[in-house]
């Protein structure tokens, strides 16, 4: 088991190195070089030379990469060209907002997705199944940002029952401990802050959850259908076990193996998905930072965020592989 983890960890290293080279090269691939792109309308030859020196762009390329890597490992991605603040500081602040949003989105996606997928499989071909399958297909076909706007329009503009944007009402004056609005409210016993946080979370979390949920429903359904056909389910039936035991121990336990992989992959994708949702709801997390960086051509920030998202994705993949080996005894011994 330990050997498997170590091997898998070692395998991730080349991926991360190539990833860093790509992202390093990406910034250099900007037309006219990064300095020109960053300066935009303010471009003058002197300013460009000045910025090139400041960014170390006048040095040989491999020195630049080496320095970039060294700084990246210590979390130094330079300063945002818009705010002038260190990028890492901005990311730190946006991080909690995004994690909180992603967490609730994933709770919704898993909490609704697995039961729905399971029920659809059990009542295969009936109304519930058909409705579920069709809604998952629609769920994937709707552009996330439009869904967000639609929800905002209906629940905030028309009905006026949910806040249109942000994480917290301006009138709530809560103490920040962890940076997670809902958790802080519980810790400091300012329960109104927690409730306010949840109310603000409701729409964005649901919108962000649609795609992972649709995927989880479909994988769960397909997987349960596969397992129901398996010989060992028939063996379990031949033992005269109760239906509850068969479902829990023999069907779900096997059916959830592929689902767990999907959950992991979808979690890795959330940070990217958050770009659209956060922009719609002015969430102020990493997604908002990324959207803003695109608009304002804030390349240091963009570079750091893309690297972060890719690294998160690789790490999550790694964790999924390892947890899969823990759940599925066949993988553990096979390698």
């Amino acid at each position, binding site marked *: 088991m330990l050997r498997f983890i170590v091997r898998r960890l070692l395998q991730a290293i080349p991926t991360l190195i190539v990833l860093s080279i790509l992202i390093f090269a990406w910034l250099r691939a900007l037309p006219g070089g990064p300095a020109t792109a960053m300066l935009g309308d303010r471009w003058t030859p002197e300013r460009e030379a000045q910025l090139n020196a400041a960014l170390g762009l006048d040095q040989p390329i491999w020195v630049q990469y080496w320095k970039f890597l060294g700084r990246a490992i210590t979390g130094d991605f330079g300063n945002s060209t818009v705010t002038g603040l260190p990028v890492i500081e901005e990311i730190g602040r946006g991080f909690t907002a995004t994690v909180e949003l992603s967490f609730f989105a994933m709770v919704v996606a898993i909490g609704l997705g697995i039961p729905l997928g399971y029920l659809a499989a059990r009542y295969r071909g009936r109304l519930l199944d058909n409705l579920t399958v069709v809604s998952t297909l629609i769920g994937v076909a709707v552009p996330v940002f439009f869904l967000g706007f639609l929800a905002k329009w209906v629940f905030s503009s028309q009905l006026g029952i949910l806040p249109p944007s942000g994480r917290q009402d301006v009138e709530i004056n809560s103490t920040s401990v962890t940076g997670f609005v809902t958790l802080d409210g519980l810790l400091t016993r300012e329960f109104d802050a927690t409730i306010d946080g949840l109310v603000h979370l409701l729409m964005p979390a649901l919108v962000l959850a649609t795609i992972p949920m649709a995927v989880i429903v479909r994988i769960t359904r397909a997987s349960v259908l596969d397992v129901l056909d398996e010989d060992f389910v*028939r*063996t379990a039936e*031949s033992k*005269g076990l109760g239906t509850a035991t068969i479902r829990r121990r023999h069907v779900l336990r*096997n059916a959830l193996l592929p689902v767990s992989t999907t959950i992991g992959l979808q979690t890795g994708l959330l940070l990217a998905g958050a770009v659209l949702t956060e922009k719609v709801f002015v969430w102020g997390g990493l997604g908002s930072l990324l959207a803003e960086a695109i608009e304002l051509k804030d390349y240091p920030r963009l570079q750091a965020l893309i690297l972060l998202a890719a690294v998160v994705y690789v790490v999550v993949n790694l964790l999924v592989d390892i947890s899969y080996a823990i759940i599925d005894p066949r993988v553990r011994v096979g390698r």
Partner: protein
Amino acid sequence: MALLEVRDLSVVFGRKRQKPFTAVDGVSFSVAAGQTVGLVGESGCGKSVTSLAIMGLLPKRGVRVSGSVTFDGTELLTLSDKQLRDRRGRDLGMVFQDPLTSLNPVIPIGLQVTEVLRRHRGLDHKKAQAEATELLNKVGIPDPNRRLSEYPHQLSGGMRQRALIAIALACQPRLLIADEPTTALDVTIQAQILNLLKELVAGTDTALIMITHDLGVVAGLCDEVNVLYAGRVVERAARHELFADPRHPYTHGLLGSIPRLDSARSAKLAPITGSVADNIPWADGCAFAPRCPNALQGCVEQPPELETQDTRLLRCYNPVLPATTAAKEG
């Protein structure tokens, strides 16, 4: 009275808007306590469906089961799901064909044995564990204590089948159904498993239904053999009688397609021509007629009935002559 009475059992598959398919077509047979009965036939002859119908394991949607299956005087086909679950695993045990896919890959062998003990015998965890060790030992799995915590993929094919047998026999069922228990195993392991089954039921009251396409399996094991073709019994006889003197052309063909040590060197293997695809429906005559070397015009006009001939049951208008007569004529 027999332990298991199957009378006029029919199983028809077919969903709405689909042509129904009759897998089992009025099969009757009985099994007495301690007896071993074979159901033999090619794949698709209805032998496995028969066993699943007895166990109540056929899917509920799209399947119609009719006739009667009485076990120790109780009608099984009309039992509620709950009552059936109480009997399965306790009174009726079943061993399946492929031991790898028939065991749950993600839970340890031990739990798969103990869950049936705890369900039907109400043992607590500790006692069930001890009993499971005992069972694995009984079916010839070495080092049973260690095996309990292992997963199916860690066992060899033969060991897995032994574990499945242990599960089926855990509650000392009065009837054990073995559905092609050796087909998925290596030839050398096959004999071991058959011997094990034989030993386990010998001298006990446990009845065994052996389902196989392999007459060789039947030869060493069964007291009585039912030969099935296209969902119907075509010949039933005691083991020795059947092997010494197969009367139905199909049985004869099955035996003729097995090489034998005692046949003349010049004798060639005689495979049965054609395939099940050539069958005609029983309503139009004998389903085997298109492949039958002995077929007469009458065979495709009126289906033959299962009738007593000497000491056996036979469904044929023009059976193969008894060996003694044939020898005289030859």
